[in-house]
């Protein structure tokens, strides 16, 4: 059916395509320069309104464009500059133009299809465009971290403070329980993997349930999400498609939003080189202080014997003697264990070199980057080396090819942190060791602390343990554009694009048998070797036809195409226990546990859409549909349809000369694919009786009719540009309802299965997003730009369709029991609800993980050559399970043990089972980053032979103001999660970093 519609569309396009080119023509030429610097601007799109003619300026800013006879209006557009229109009388054939900078990206062209876009002032959907210079204004471990506070509608949260990243991006709320929660990332047209692949650390920490598939343990390894491989310095712009109407072009992978990243490309003209050198250091930002003991309190805590009713009945002499053995000069000392383990001040560095240029038909952008971040825990860190080559080649006016490629090597040493059941985790272990116990090595020998968790000496673990990762990645893509027809009224373009994204990730985790916590194991010493291969390929072909009638009163764009996507991930792991001393090779272990898993999805999408722009470019109407089938669905031959429709109307100059005001509304549908394997009922192998293998049905029943979750969304908003572009406001309201939500259902056990994932639930997310910018001061030497983003999203579970009318279920990775707070998905409640018991054992709701709102403010103040910028990020509401606090409280080691709060926490853990002290508000105000920079005068720059030079000082993660106790309110023990984020359990502590940067252009 869809194929037929496409055939007709394309046939029509073919017919109109052969219409003869109009004879009446003239040639217009001119030059475009910057209003600020008078330098020529290359790459400016020039078009003649009412026609399909288009041209691009060259390195000298010159262009030539055909135009019909008679008066014409030329439009000049380029990203980062304000659009300019020039009226041209019939007898004038030259037109020069000057363009002014566009600080709020109001003039960007935003994506509306696989190969179509529309000017942002007309866009009928909410869009966010971030330029590369905003991304790289301060260094960040990965691109996602650099977007914090800059994108309305997105909650971007780090999982821990570990070097190398580990960040989750949630766009427009929690829209799934078991499906993927990550946005789709597209880099230069190539769909790239943002997988978070377990390091295998859980084989040492033994977090999770070892009897199961260890799925629960894997998630607690604080993995890096592989977006970290991308070099932020290469980015030209990032566009975030938030709404269903925007992302429905990506079908059943669009529900979590689509992040479209475009990297830098060469510009024609003299070759340019750019060098950035950064150097800096990091330090612990926040953490737990130490409870100070004297011998009396130490004996109460560690040597007193209690009866069944909790009354002290005596003192254990051995424990008392142990405490006395820690005395130094007759007093118990106080060591700050957190600063001992996380007190490093490592050096960080980054060097970026890029070269770009081109002549005539060939343009290139080449870059290399070397970066190293140290960790505040010794022997941890992250390094990245990247090479990029982007080449554009035109073969004629009609045919051009754009090639992009990047090769990366990313290595991390993450150490042992997060949840632990074995004495391995450093941050978990110090929550058990009182301050009077020395853990520093004595004459090079680490003491066994005596009072600790499972014999752990965290400093020994830091010195001997290893959790290393190496990822090699190649991402490459090719886009070919053929201008089949370019006449006054018709323009037919055929675009083909394809790309591959390969990576290999190798992990090695080693806990040698010498470690105290390993020594008393059945098979001391663990080495775990992990390997993951990911291969994504995708390609698409599109035909785009634009038609402009002679009257020039409207313009329609018809596009249709096909997209193919293939995604594979193979993971393998071997855990070796009983490792020989001094060895790291898994062959040197005595008990081996293998693991292998492969996932593979193939998806085909066919799509068509129509855009109509008319009434003097005031009214934009668009509609489209994507038809998609996928191997992930139960029925691989069934097409699922994802329609969209949108409209906007502009009121130019309604709010004063040069202003623009727009109303817009959009409806769209998007989806979330079932996960690989959810449709299969498996037979479990690997089981033996009497030496023979047998198969039995697995616990989980597949659903042969499983289908994508579907999200239907309505959004409406206003966009306004005021004061000649000095102020801009974008306000969007949205409501999305997700149906066919995949819900874990327990069938009647007499059917033989324990679990099945069925489409059935419904949830609702609704919210408001605001992005605003204002140039507060705009004088010759002083400029002050203020930007803000605001997001508030409400979420509610509407239906779950559980057997027996059950109203809720405990999701996987919900937490550690109702006495500590656990996630519970319940009808009528927010999907990220956390419940727990109070001091009298009643189960109560303790809030939800998602915040009430997130509000960020950034300022950029320029005075002469100096520039100061900083970004504050305010999160209000939301709760987290602070299980790190529960460790300190349970063990009587909270620094405020004697205070009412400390006593309440101790009592809750040890007596009443009250969860409330451990479910804490995550409200915070953070100074995410600040930078002070100075553009050196040209003659100073010329001393190094540079064209321009800049020096700056930057700080990242500088200040956190919060009532949250301990590390960081932004944390996730289980990594990327749709729901069960916000669990804090011995994470890598947060750090703040400072950098000194020199940047020079040649």
């Amino acid at each position, binding site marked *: 059916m869809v194929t037929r519609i496409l055939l007709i569309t394309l*046939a029509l396009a073919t017919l109109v395509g052969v219409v003869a080119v109009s004879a009446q023509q003239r040639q217009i030429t001119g030059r475009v320069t910057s209003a600020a610097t008078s330098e020529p601007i290359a790459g400016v799109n020039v078009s003649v309104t009412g026609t399909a003619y288009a041209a691009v300026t060259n390195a000298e800013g010159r262009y030539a464009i055909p135009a019909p006879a008679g008066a014409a209006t030329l439009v000049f557009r380029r990203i980062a500059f304000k659009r300019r229109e020039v009226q041209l009388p019939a007898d004038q054939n030259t037109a020069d133009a000057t363009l002014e900078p566009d600080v709020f990206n109001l003039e960007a062209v935003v994506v509306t299809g696989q190969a179509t876009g529309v000017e942002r002032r007309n866009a009928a959907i909410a869009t966010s465009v971030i330029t590369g210079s905003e991304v790289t204004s301060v260094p960040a471990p990965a691109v996602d971290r650099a977007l914090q506070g800059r994108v309305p509608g997105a909650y971007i949260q780090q999982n821990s403070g570990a070097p190398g990243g580990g960040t989750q991006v949630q766009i427009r709320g929690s829209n799934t329980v078991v499906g993927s929660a990550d946005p789709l990332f597209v880099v230069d047209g190539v769909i790239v993997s943002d997988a978070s692949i377990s390091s295998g650390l859980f084989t040492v920490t033994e977090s999770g349930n070892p009897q199961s598939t260890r799925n629960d343990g894997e998630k607690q390894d604080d993995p890096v999400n592989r977006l970290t491989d991308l070099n932020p310095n290469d980015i030209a712009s990032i566009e975030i498609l938030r709404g269903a109407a925007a992302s429905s072009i990506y079908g059943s992978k669009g529900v979590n939003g689509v992040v479209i990243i475009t990297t830098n490309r060469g510009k024609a003209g003299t070759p340019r080189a750019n060098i950035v050198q950064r150097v800096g250091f990091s330090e612990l930002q926040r953490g737990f202080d130490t409870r100070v003991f004297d011998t009396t309190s130490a004996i109460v805590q560690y040597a007193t014997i209690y009866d069944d009713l909790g009354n002290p009945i005596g003192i254990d002499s051995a424990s008392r003697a142990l405490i006395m053995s820690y005395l130094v000069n007759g007093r118990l000392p106080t060591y700050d264990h957190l600063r001992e383990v996380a007190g490093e001040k490592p050096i960080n560095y980054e060097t970026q070199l890029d070269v770009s240029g081109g002549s005539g038909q060939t343009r290139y952008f080449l870059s290399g980057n070397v970066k190293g971040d140290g960790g505040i825990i010794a022997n941890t860190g992250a390094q990245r080396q990247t090479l990029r080559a982007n080449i554009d080649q035109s073969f004629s006016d009609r045919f051009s090819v754009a090639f992009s490629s990047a090769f990366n090597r990313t290595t991390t040493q993450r150490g042992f942190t997060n949840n632990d059941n074995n004495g391995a985790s450093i941050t978990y272990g110090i929550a058990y060791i009182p301050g009077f116990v020395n853990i520093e090595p004595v004459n090079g020998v680490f003491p066994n602390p005596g009072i600790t968790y499972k014999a752990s000496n965290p400093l020994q673990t830091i010195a001997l343990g290893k959790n290393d990762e190496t990822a090699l990645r190649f991402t490459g893509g090719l886009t070919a554009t053929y201008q089949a027809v370019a006449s006054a009224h018709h323009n037919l373009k055929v675009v083909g694009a394809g790309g591959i994204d390969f990576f290999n990730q190798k992990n090695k985790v080693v806990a040698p048998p010498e470690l105290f916590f390993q020594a008393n194991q059945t098979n001391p010493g663990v080495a775990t070797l992990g390997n993951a291969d990911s291969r994504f390929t995708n390609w698409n072909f599109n035909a785009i036809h634009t038609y402009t009638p002679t009257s020039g009163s409207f313009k329609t764009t018809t596009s249709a195409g096909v997209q193919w996507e293939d995604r594979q991930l193979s993971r393998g792991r071997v855990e070796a226990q009983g490792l020989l001393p001094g060895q790291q090779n898994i062959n040197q272990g005595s008990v081996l546990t293998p693991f292998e898993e492969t996932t593979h999805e193939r998806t085909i999408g066919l799509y068509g859409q129509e855009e109509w722009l008319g009434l003097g470019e005031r009214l934009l109407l668009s509609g489209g549909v994507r038809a998609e089938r996928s191997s992930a669905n139960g029925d691989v031959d069934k097409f699922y349809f994802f329609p969209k429709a949108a409209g906007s109307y502009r009121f130019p100059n309604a709010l004063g000369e040069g202003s623009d005001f727009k109303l817009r509304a959009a409806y769209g549908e998007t989806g979330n694919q079932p996960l690989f394997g959810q449709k299969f009922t498996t037979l479990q192998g690997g089981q033996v009786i009497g030496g023979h293998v047998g198969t039995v049905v697995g616990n989980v029943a597949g659903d042969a009719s499983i289908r994508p979750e579907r999200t239907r969304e309505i959004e409406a908003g206003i966009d306004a540009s005021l004061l000649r572009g000095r102020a801009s406001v974008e306000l969007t309201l949205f409501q999305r309802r997700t149906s066919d939500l995949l819900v874990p259902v327990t069938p009647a056990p007499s059917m033989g299965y324990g679990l099945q994932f069925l489409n059935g639930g419904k949830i609702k997310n609704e919210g408001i997003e605001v992005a605003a910018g204002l140039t507060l001061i705009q004088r010759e030497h002083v400029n002050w730009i203020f930007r803000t983003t605001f997001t508030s999203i409400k979420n509610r579970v509407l239906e779950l369709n559980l057997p027996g009318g059950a109203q809720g279920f405990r999701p996987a990775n919900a937490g550690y029991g109702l006495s500590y707070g656990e996630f519970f998905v319940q009808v009528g409640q927010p999907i990220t609800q956390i419940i727990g018991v109070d001091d009298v054992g009643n189960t109560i709701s303790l809030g939800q993980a998602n915040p009430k709102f997130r509000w960020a403010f950034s300022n950029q103040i320029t005075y002469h050559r100096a520039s100061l910028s900083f970004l504050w990020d305010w999160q209000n509401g939301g709760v987290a399970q602070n299980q790190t606090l529960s460790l300190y409280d349970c063990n009587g080691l909270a620094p405020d043990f004697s205070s009412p709060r400390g006593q309440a926490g101790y009592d809750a853990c040890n007596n009443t089972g009250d969860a409330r002290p451990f479910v804490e508000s995550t409200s915070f105000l953070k100074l995410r980053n600040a930078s002070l920079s100075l553009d050196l005068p040209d003659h100073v720059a010329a001393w190094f032979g540079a064209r321009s030079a800049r020096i700056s000082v930057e700080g990242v993660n500088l200040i956190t103001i919060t009532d949250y106790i301990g590390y960081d309110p932004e944390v996730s023990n289980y990594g990327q999660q749709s729901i069960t984020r916000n669990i804090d359990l011995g994470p890598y502590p947060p750090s703040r970093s400072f950098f000194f940067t020199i940047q020079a252009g040649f």
Partner: protein
Amino acid sequence: MRTTKLLAALVGLVVATGCKDLNVPNLNSPALDDLLNNPTRSKIVTAATGLLIGTRAGIAAQNGYVSLLGIVGRESYNFDPADPRFVTEMMVGPLDGGSPAFGGNLWANPYRSILNANILLTATDRVPAMSDPEKEAVRGFAKTIQAFDFLKVIVTRDANGAPIDVGIDLTAPPAAIATRAAVYARIVQLLDAAQTHLQAAGSTFPFTLPSGFAGFNTPSTFLQFNRALRARVAVYTDDFAGALTALGGSFIDTTKSLNLGVYYDYSTVSGDETNALFDPNARAIVAHPSLETDAQLQTGGAKDARFVRKIAKLPAAKSAQGLTSDLQFVIYDAVDAPIPIIRNEELILLRAEANVGLNTAGSLAAAITDLNTIRVKSGSLPLYAGAVTQTALLDELLYNKRYSLMFEGGHRWIDLRHYGRLNTLPQDPTSGGAAKRFSKFPFPGFECDPRSPPPPGCGTETGS
């Protein structure tokens, strides 16, 4: 025209892509659909072996079939320091269908095994490369094991009944709860159908049975196992004449070892299961003190040899929640110790039980003969000297079943319930109250959830 060609090519591409086969098979595990729709001889073989793995699941666990039925039958205590529910729920109650490890336990494992058998039977009907005698062998095997799994279900739920029409279609609503009698009738039907299949089978099974089936690993000898189960079911349903008939086809033999029989296998081989009832330090499982006090004496004054053989004294008594015991089971003396499914000793006792049930002068005499065989061979006890009445002999039979089949799978609890004597179980005073006597387990909560209104047997079992 070049444009037209280009577009035609594009259209062709769209059509070609749109029709492409996207199927991706399960890359990580064998798939059920593959076994059902494309069965081969080797897939049948692994599925048949899997049936033995499935029917073994949850037997030897610390909260498994033997252990939990041992607690409700006052054969054992479980003092697991990590889980007080072994006493609070399993002894004081109520048994809670909502707790999958205790009151709602002993259900999902046998039903999964029943599903496995149904899958194996369906695949066997479809497999091309097997001879009819081979198929008959598989069918006889599968139906025997399935009957055994239904038996494990109904002995725990008893009067509550259980679903029997369970198929392999998950989209169908859950099967109705059938009465106890209907479940036993299905078990009998399956065992008798299996008999017919095994009689039509060849001389060997197409798969290898593990060592627990030594001596019963051909269709003809496996049939003796089938008849042994049939005899147990007949006794449970008071079909005493039928029991004697079935025993005639079983491996009952007073001249052979009492341990001759069929066992669940355990081993430490990678992928195999170990016997978790092996608890050398009595970490959790201890024997009920009444086993010592109730044991009869040998002629020399020593306790019943079965007590001496199966139970050891702990160096120090263990206590938990008001209960105390200094007795430890030594029945399972290694992590690979097998657990009996049915053995010669039980068959001799079943014959005695059937004969007591028939209650004729000749049958009572025959019962005494069998009881004396067990008393002497197994217990080293003097010959039976009590009254020759049905009541007295039933007492004597239950005593011998208790000590002969001690901690082998709930025999004492099942037998006391059968004869209405659960009220003879001691009401141990735990710190949470006196222990209750339970006659049956409730249905698991998840079994009740999809049924409206919930059938009797959902919720909790308070005991008496």
